[in-house]
């Protein structure tokens, strides 16, 4: 039997991720995989800050955490710090706030008790937010009590180094590295990770975000290694700052297409996969790096591809399902980005929302519930934080919270706060943790 030929056209980080992931998952008896090298990574800075689920991706392709951190200079990330977007700055982390008490959602309970005036009032009840503020880190104690065991974390890292690591893995899984594109002529499947769509006919749906950017890397600007990605609203756009072990990445995003060094257009293809060409990464979708979105989508698209991999590559139905899930994932994620812009008081600009996004915001504004849609990748309290952080406070609270008594609630709130305080006490500083566990050769915070 001749093997099916898969050719990955490199360009952005998604190509290297696909090479390693497909190399590991698709049996080499039936598939031969080629990776076409294409020079330095496209938009690599956009991938320097991850969501928490990158950890699972690495586990699946057998990349250990220490190995990853050392070779990619990874620091730990407990959330994103949004400044200037809402009334006060706020951190969006990878876990829900507090805990349900007596069956009542934590936020409702705080509101009902009159303990909530701004999102700052939630800080005592979030381990990752407090750890980030104190500059401390220790991975969750999986055997510990809920509050201490159930938070999660991502990374700030060097995407270029990650690509090398991935391609090394890919080679060990039997993926062949080639220098020219000509091999794709005989491919059964072309995975286009060049950053630009291959099929002219694919229509592109535009979204309104920023239009240009300038990216820089700098020597560390602070003596402390931050546990958050800083997302700061500016007059003409916003700025992302992320620090890995050796350098700071700064990206300025502008609404105006003339202001940045590079232009970009937020939007997505309506059919990422048609015939034998599958567009992934920036070729399929361009969203700005809030909550690690671009990298996250790369990861999820690749995992989805393997989950739905067509035994017969000429069959259209798996392709159709891939496109259905992918586009709906893109759109729900864009809802998050659009709401991030639209509900911010930083700018007087119009940001259109889909009906689903509007419904989600309105239900929250009315009664503090987060509507869940299928193919929504964010945690409930990612949304809660976004809304509360930008000053949307629910008008009504859960009727079941209405009769909670302070004498019943307070001891539990105090207990949560205390558990976190105790946990923090035994956590090392972020820099110490890295120095001990996973320092890269040029670790700058020794």
């Amino acid at each position: 039997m001749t093997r099916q030929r898969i050719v990955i056209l490199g360009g952005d980080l998604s190509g290297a991720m696909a090479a390693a992931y497909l190399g590991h998952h698709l049996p080499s008896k039936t598939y031969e995989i080629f990776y076409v090298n294409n020079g330095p990574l496209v938009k690599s800075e956009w991938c320097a800050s991850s969501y928490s689920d990158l950890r699972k991706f690495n586990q699946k392709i057998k990349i250990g955490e220490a190995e990853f951190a050392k070779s990619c200079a990874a620091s730990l990330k407990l959330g994103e710090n949004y400044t200037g977007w809402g009334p006060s700055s706020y951190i969006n982390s990878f876990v829900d706030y507090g805990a349900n008490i007596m069956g009542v959602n934590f936020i409702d309970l705080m509101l009902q008790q009159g303990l909530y005036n701004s999102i700052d009032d939630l800080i005592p009840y979030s381990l990752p937010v407090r750890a980030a503020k104190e500059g401390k880190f220790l991975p969750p104690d999986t055997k510990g009590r809920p509050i201490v065991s159930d938070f999660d974390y991502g990374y700030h890292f060097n995407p270029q180094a990650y690509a090398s690591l991935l391609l090394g893995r890919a080679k060990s899984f039997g993926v062949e590295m080639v220098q020219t594109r000509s091999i794709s002529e005989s491919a059964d499947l072309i995975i286009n990770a060049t950053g630009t769509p291959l099929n002219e006919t694919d229509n592109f749906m535009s979204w309104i975000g920023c239009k240009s950017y300038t990216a820089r890397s700098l020597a560390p600007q602070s003596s402390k290694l931050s546990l958050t990605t800083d997302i700061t609203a500016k007059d003409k756009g916003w700025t992302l700052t992320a620090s890995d072990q050796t350098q700071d990445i700064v990206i300025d995003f502008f609404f105006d297409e003339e202001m940045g060094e590079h232009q970009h257009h937020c939007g997505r293809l309506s059919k990422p996969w048609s015939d034998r060409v599958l567009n992934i990464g920036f070729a399929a979708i361009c969203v700005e790096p809030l909550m690690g979105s671009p990298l996250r989508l790369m990861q999820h698209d690749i995992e989805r591809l393997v989950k739905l991999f067509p035994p017969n590559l000429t069959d259209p139905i798996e392709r159709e399902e891939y496109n259905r899930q992918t586009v709906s994932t893109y759109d729900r994620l864009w809802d998050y980005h659009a709401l991030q812009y639209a509900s911010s008081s930083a700018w007087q600009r119009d940001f259109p929302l889909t009906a689903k996004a509007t419904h989600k915001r309105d239900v929250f504004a009315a009664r503090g519930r987060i509507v869940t849609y299928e193919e929504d990748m964010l945690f409930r309290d990612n949304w809660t934080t976004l809304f509360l952080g930008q000053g949307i406070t629910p008008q009504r609270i859960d009727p079941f919270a209405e009769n909670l008594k302070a004498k019943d609630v307070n001891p539990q709130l105090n207990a949560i706060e205390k558990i976190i305080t105790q946990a923090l006490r035994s956590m090392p500083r972020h820099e110490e943790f890295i120095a001990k566990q996973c320092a890269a050769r040029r670790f700058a915070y020794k």
Partner: protein
Amino acid sequence: MDNKKVTSIVIVGGGTAGWMTAAGLCATLRNQELSITLIESAAIGTVGVGEATLPHIRFFNQRLGINEAELMKATKATFKLGIEFKDWGKIGDSYIHPFGNFGEDIARVGFHHYVSRAAQQGFDIHLDKWSLPVMAARHGKFQLPHPDPNNILSSFGFAYQFDAGLYAKFLRAFSEKRGIKRIEGRIIDVNLRSENGFISSVKLEDGSDIEADIFIDCSGFRGLLIEQALETGYKDWTNFLPCDRAVTAACEHEGPSLPYTTATAKSAGWQWRIPLQHRTGNGYVYCSDHISDDEAAASMLADLEGDQRSEPKTLRFKTGQRNKSWHKNCIAIGLSGGFLEPLESTGIFLIQEAITNFIEMFPTKDCPQIDQDEYNRIMDLNFERVRDFLLLHYVATTRDDSPFWRHIRDMELPESLTYKMELFKSSGRVVSYDVGAFKDPSWLAVYYGQGIIPRAYDPVADHIPLESLPQHLGKVENEVAQAVESMSRHGDYIRQYCNAA
């Protein structure tokens, strides 16, 4: 804000829906200053069917703090591990749709892909042997799932087969103990508020008007409030699910006690058999275009397993869903909200979903549109997804032995279903969703059970060498067989756990 607080709710109807709603509300809202009144009429009575349930009902009862054994005793209940479908894919077939999986993933690939691969090699792939609940059901075995999730004896869920009338009675006692007011009487009129068309009160035969902020319509098929008063409209789905009648009768139980329901496909529909502790419930669900009521009753009686215990009773229904489950200040729960034939025992499940969602979206007096929209969105998803799943049973078949089955064969299907089936036929992928009663394992059970075997399987499954495939499959088969061997007989288990006699 306080003056917008809901202070009174009237539930119209004392069938399963009415009393489940009453119990659900009074258990969750017990701290609220809220008066709940239920109105029912003995003269009108209840529909009096609905004996088989889904595992979700256990969570409902747990939330109410109801003791399981006590409830089972009071309702003469048996345990249910799944539904046996006879003669569906073709005449002579039998498979069980269990509350549980078939095998565990191997190397992160779904077990069923290895089954498809084995099928290509000519293995016998009848799924029964790889599922603990199915084998337990076939052998008449039951015991509560093992608490250790790594133990194979934990790998299933279960539900009940019970007397729904007794369940309603049980919930009535529960609710009345918690302060629910019950009024016996017939409603003869519904008064609307002129300014917004909300229901202001219902008028009883004795002339009294009962007012409330919110009205829950549990009046059965007639939809006394939601339709007769508010004219909300109905989505008719008989073009997909053409059965429109059922004839039912109870009979004596024969043979060992069975922990499962049976649904046998017949020439103009299908017949259920639901074994309770003291009797067996039966009913022939049929399409009146293809069989007369008398013929259907005769056919139903001919298939009873034991002596008939009640006179045949015929019911009429129209499959579909109310345009809006929640309209103005009226929420339709139970048969008034919609009807899907009981092929997968979803009636009570949908009642429970409605109650849970209503509690989640509990409104203020003015019933804000946004609350209604979100509630209706979730209920619509629930109804449509159950509908497609039921329809799958009818279309995944080669039967064309009667005008009824030929009608089904030639029927136009909803695109949502044809798409799912096409994807499955290609490479065994199930279109997953979050909201809805039936998840991937259920779809797999029906697909394979009714002879839809994918043309190909997940290519990642090829990591397991072909030579070791029989060994992998054989291992699961042995584990299941040994575990089932160790289980108690269902009848014995009931006798010591919840004997009603």
